[in-house]
């Protein structure tokens, strides 16, 4: 609309804003006129199909709030938002089949049932054709090494195993867009590595668009060609990772971003 781009973005946000009504015991740094708190403050974002974008920023910057608007969980206070052609909050149920979501701190799996049972239920809920489901399950079982615990109740799995199960659960229906909110949080080095390699492969093999939130520099370095940084609900950097680390090492630059220094003014 405003800018010309070779492909239509699969995620498009213009002036995306979320203000929470005032609630006791929260930070009150940014106040809106009605006494609320603006967690996301006028974000512009265009993500093309097939991009793998690292979405970074300090705790409380507004990353999870953005993702919750992109999935339709939260209704934006203002701004325009389109994901895969849908308006997330309004078309939430239909959009749900086009997206996959992984929350690092939560599990979508059924605690008391074998991992496999969660997958077969998801097949029904997402109406995945049986042959497609079989192929995908076989692929993810091999790629994420699920074989040895597929028949074990989820409550008995280690964090790393459960996360691999959750990632599979988010992908079985071949979503066009995947959001991962801190998927590597709390994982050991080996599991982190496995998840990283897997995501990179997923993006390259299927062209799935991935938006990844992480505090791990190595995740960003290994995976993301593009980085969007936010702080206090505003975009402080949006560009390629190579530009970001052009003259200094990535860790220093990211630390500066986290300290609230804006490297590039993208809002113009």
């Amino acid at each position, binding site marked *: 609309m405003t800018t010309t781009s070779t492909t239509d973005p699969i995620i498009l946000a213009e002036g995306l804003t979320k203000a929470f009504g005032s609630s006791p015991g929260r930070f009150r740094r940014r106040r809106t006129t009605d006494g609320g708190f603006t967690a996301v403050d006028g974000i512009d974002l265009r993500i093309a199909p097939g991009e793998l974008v690292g979405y970074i920023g300090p705790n409380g910057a507004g990353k999870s709030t953005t993702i919750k608007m992109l999935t339709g969980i939260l209704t934006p206070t203002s701004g325009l938002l389109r994901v895969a052609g849908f308006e997330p909050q309004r078309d939430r149920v239909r959009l*749900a089949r086009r997206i996959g979501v992984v929350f690092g701190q939560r599990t979508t799996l059924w605690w008391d049932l074998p991992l496999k049972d969660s997958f077969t239920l998801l097949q029904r809920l997402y109406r995945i054709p049986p042959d497609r489901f079989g192929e995908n399950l076989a692929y993810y079982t091999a790629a994420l090494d699920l074989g040895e615990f597929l028949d074990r109740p989820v409550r008995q799995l280690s964090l790393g195993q459960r996360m691999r199960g959750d990632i599979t659960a988010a992908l079985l229906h071949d979503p066009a867009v995947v959001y991962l909110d801190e998927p590597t949080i709390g994982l050991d080095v080996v599991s982190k590595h496995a998840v990283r390699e897997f995501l990179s492969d997923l993006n390259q093999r299927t062209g799935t668009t991935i938006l990844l939130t992480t505090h791990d520099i190595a995740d960003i370095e290994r995976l993301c060609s593009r980085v969007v940084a936010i702080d206090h609900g505003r975009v402080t950097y949006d560009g390629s990772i190579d530009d970001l680390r052009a003259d200094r090492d990535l860790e220093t630059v990211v630390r500066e971003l986290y300290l609230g220094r804006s490297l590039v003014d993208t809002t113009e």
Partner: protein
Amino acid sequence: MADTTTEPDDRPLWGPTAYLLLVRIWMRAASQYRVSLLLTTVAQLFTTCLDLIAILVIYSHVRTIGGFTLPETLYLYGTTRLAFAVSDALASGVENLATMIRLGNFDLVLIRPVSSLAQVLADQFTPKRFGKLAAPVLTLGWAIDALPLHWTAAKAAVAIGTVVCGLVLYCALWVLTGCISFIAVDAQEVANSFTYGSENATEYPLSIFGRPLGLALTFVLPVAFVTWQPSLYVLGHPDPFGLPEFLRFASPAAAAVLSGLAALAWRACIRHYRSTGS
């Protein structure tokens, strides 16, 4: 046969189908703990019989209460209880909503491509909820057998309609109480006294509350429609409050109106859902 359906299979799974799928998986999860399940089911059975015993004890001292005989009272009790027990079995997953919201797990409900209501109603479904059905079924069976009534097709239809409308009405109330947990996550206690409280109110003949309260219950709380009005027709009992005849058959309308309200309220709650900071 030739498959001529060109409809793109883009539609979400139908709510009731999703509900049944989820009920099945929750039941399977519950059956992992077999002993505890058996014990709680038995306990459930006994506690639901306690009210019944109280009614029998009262009637061992008096012949009628507010002009109603024992079988008539048991009929009122049985229909209300049955409607409530079925709604309880179907919809009390709503009770977990406050916890889901507080822990942020309701987010996960909203990322699935099926009705959020179906997911919430089915939440933590356990077979023990069926234990609550035994007492009302037995009571109603006994009351119908003991009532000196000449059953007509119309009366039978109204009797069945009473239970169905009551059940729908209670489900709508469950959903509305769920909406309360969106507004105030800690208000679940209040919400419970609302559903359970109104159930106790219609269980006994309304006339023992006196006219003002009876009228209030009829109009302020649509719950009175559940058994009272249609049951007056079935029992061939004049209305002690002298309300117009057509109200005997207004239950379906009341159930429909309240269901509509509940559906609207639920939508509004989803739209204004705030999630939690993580």
